[in-house]
């Protein structure tokens, strides 16, 4: 069974600084997809960034980037130039074909950006 682990329940960062959220996963599959979702206090789930396992290049979306280490099964999220609006729960997620498209989530990291 695929599992997703986020070992940091809570983190904080000063506005304009950089923060990295950790995520590890366990799978025997070679083709899969990884995601980071953001859930602000409004509780809406927002897709931040996605990574295809067969691509070695790390995905980037503006201030958000990932460090994907396939051999280590690690998928961390880096937020640069943190903004107050980045305050939210962040969920790492995994899916692949053999999971019937089922997306598995980590327990989440609560990020607070301080002014």
């Amino acid at each position, binding site marked *: 069974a695929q599992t997703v682990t986020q070992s940091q329940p809570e983190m904080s960062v000063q506005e304009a600084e950089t923060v990295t959220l950790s995520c590890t996963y366990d799978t025997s599959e070679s083709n899969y*997809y990884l995601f980071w979702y953001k859930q602000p206090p409004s509780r809406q789930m927002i897709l931040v960034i996605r990574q295809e396992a067969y691509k070695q290049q790390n995905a980037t979306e503006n201030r958000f980037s990932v460090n994907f280490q396939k051999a280590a099964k690690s998928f961390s999220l880096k937020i640069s130039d943190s903004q107050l609006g980045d305050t939210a729960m962040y969920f790492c997620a995994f899916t692949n074909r053999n999971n019937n498209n*089922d997306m598995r989530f980590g327990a*989440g990291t*609560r990020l607070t950006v301080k002014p």
Partner: protein
Amino acid sequence: DTAVSQTPKYLVTQMGNDKSIKCEQNLGHDTMYWYKQDSKKFLKIMFSYNNKELIINETVPNRFSPKSPDKAHLNLHINSLELGDSAVYFCASSQEFGFNYGYTFGSGTRLTVV
């Protein structure tokens, strides 16, 4: 237009009642899902429907039943509500062969059982 819409956003009800949460998507997606988010924010898959067929059914109580009248709708019916059913329920959708692009989520329904 809202891509995935859920109604109601908030639902407060008494133990023992039967309630429904509705979900509609206008994205033309093939698969729809229901997730439960507990008080610790943990997200767990409950059900998914692909072309009106149930393809995932996690170990949820049979008091919960999904109903899909068509590809664009997946409603969640809950019978004999219990205190432990209090949670936020999310509907989501994806393309069957585009699941790698992630899910689109509704805004959630906060269910409170008193």
